[in-house]
């Protein structure tokens, strides 16, 4: 018997009560997103094409793309870009690999898995302001880290004052504080891998290393894509740590100057709203492009 296929009934009249209820439910969202996301996006485009005078009332001079051409000539933009790029290039792979290793270790039938996980997650829930202050103190010339380095016979550094290592100090801190977050994501994904896959591989004589390389890593690829994408977006937005580290200057000698810190300085030190909006657009474009490239590399591969 052939069952007649019933098409979903299309409502002949708009249900007024339900539409009203829908809009009552949506109203806070529409108002807030409208005023503080959509309007700002339009406003940002407008700002980036203007020179903004903030004295007394606000005054806008249309200057076309001059804010954008100025980006090319501004050497601090180049420095901030290089610092940010270096930061992303080192921190994202490091925290991803560390997170994966921690997750695999925790998932290998260890006792007290949840207790370890809770403990490791601690830095991730702690405020970046607190972490930065604690690390600044540990990084002091006669601080804990240098004592440990000296004790094991390694060279010590002026972590806060030496332009060559200041950014490295922030990198170490952030790998340490963010890796546990991705560890948790990896842990959830590892638990979804069916045990049978490993058992089959064991029957074929695979050792733990082969299982890791040929089963775990490929099966985790979608998660790795997610972790790297979120990692890139997060690291490109580095601000709190370098602001607190350098007292807002980006020093020593611009070593900790990042793109978001530059935007902040353009707004509040130099009162150049239009130029700041242009830097924000540059940063947004870079994040989007890098994420798309990342998607090409990770996302499309078939496992």
């Amino acid at each position, binding site marked *: 018997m052939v069952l007649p296929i019933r098409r979903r009934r299309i409502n002949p009249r708009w249900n007024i009560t339900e*539409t009203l209820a829908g809009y009552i439910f949506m109203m806070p969202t529409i108002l807030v997103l409208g005023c503080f996301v959509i309007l700002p996006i339009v406003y940002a485009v407008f700002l980036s094409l203007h020179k903004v005078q903030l004295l007394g009332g606000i005054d806008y001079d249309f200057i076309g793309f001059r804010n954008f051409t100025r980006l090319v000539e501004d050497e601090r933009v180049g420095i901030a870009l290089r610092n940010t790029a270096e930061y992303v290039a080192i921190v994202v792979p490091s925290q991803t690999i560390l997170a994966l290793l921690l997750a695999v270790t925790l998932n290998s039938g260890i006792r007290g898995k949840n207790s370890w996980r809770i403990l*490791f997650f601690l830095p991730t829930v702690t*405020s*970046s302001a607190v972490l930065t202050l604690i690390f600044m103190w540990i990084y002091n010339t006669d601080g*804990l880290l240098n004592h440990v380095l000296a004790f094991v016979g390694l060279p010590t550094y002026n972590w806060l004052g030496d332009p060559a290592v200041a950014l490295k100090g922030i990198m170490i801190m952030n790998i340490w504080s963010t890796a*546990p977050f991705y560890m948790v994501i990896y842990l959830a994904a590892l638990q979804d891998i069916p045990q049978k896959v490993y058992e089959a591989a064991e029957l074929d004589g695979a050792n733990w290393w082969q299982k890791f390389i040929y089963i775990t890593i490929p099966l985790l690829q979608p998660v790795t894509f997610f972790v790297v994408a979120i990692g890139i977006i997060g690291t490109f937005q580095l601000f709190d740590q370098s602001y607190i580290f350098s007292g807002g200057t980006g020093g020593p000698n611009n070593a900790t100057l990042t793109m978001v810190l530059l935007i902040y300085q353009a707004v509040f030190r130099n009162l150049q709203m239009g130029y700041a909006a242009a830097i924000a657009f540059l940063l947004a474009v870079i994040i989007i492009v890098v994420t798309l490239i990342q998607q090409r590399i990770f996302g499309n591969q078939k496992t």
Partner: protein
Amino acid sequence: MTNISRLPWLKALLYIVLTLYAIITLIPFLWALSASFKPLPEIISGELNFFPQHFTLDNYRQIFVQEQLFWRWFFNSVFIALSVTLLNLLFNSMAGYALARLSFVGKRFWFFLILALLAVPTQITLIPTFLILKAIGWLNSYQGMIVPGMVNATFIFMMRQFFVNFPQELEEAGQLDGLNTLGIFRHIVLPLAKPALAAQAVFVFMSSWNNFLLPIVILFDPEMFTLPLGLNSFKGQYISYWNYIMAASMMFTLPALGIYAFFNRYFIQGATFTGGKG
């Protein structure tokens, strides 16, 4: 992945690695905690004492008694984070519910608009938001900190997914009992959404509590500072008084740790479906 019980040496190695990592995780916190009980001379003497030689509560006394603004910062942080959290829970689930269950004119438009907004980087909206808040006189105010953040596209989307997979029978039963949409939402839907709401609550609270960029942009009066800003200004004021700074850091961290310990399960759940911190 591997049943390590058959490989005792590997098992031992893994425990060593985990223990070492646990030490690396804990040392900065313990070191800071210990310093918060040390008098300044002991800290700058350069001796590495994990336990204070001259245990003192003076640092905490200094924060609470001398630094009167600390309580104010504490209150500001709690008030803002709680308000933002409660409003987010209410508004995100209302919007999520409407997008999942109600049929209304323009629903598809709003759904795709909210999806699109997920992709907009925060830097773009920061400066215009500052200028908008300035124009309406909300700089340096609680409403300036609360209103722009009281809905969140990510969690609206999350709540929508949750409600789409929600069994419809209970709502229909509510309808038969004569409840209207608001009543169904209030008495049936919200109570059953507790796990999703708890995960969201912890996440929103934590990100508001720890937020640095938004307050530093829109708050300028020390009276209005939240704890992260207060702490930063504290550092400027007591530039080498690491004893005070560490005591303040500890006082700032404890409430967050309490919430983390209490809601740990939801927090970890939440961690698997939302983004990282900036």
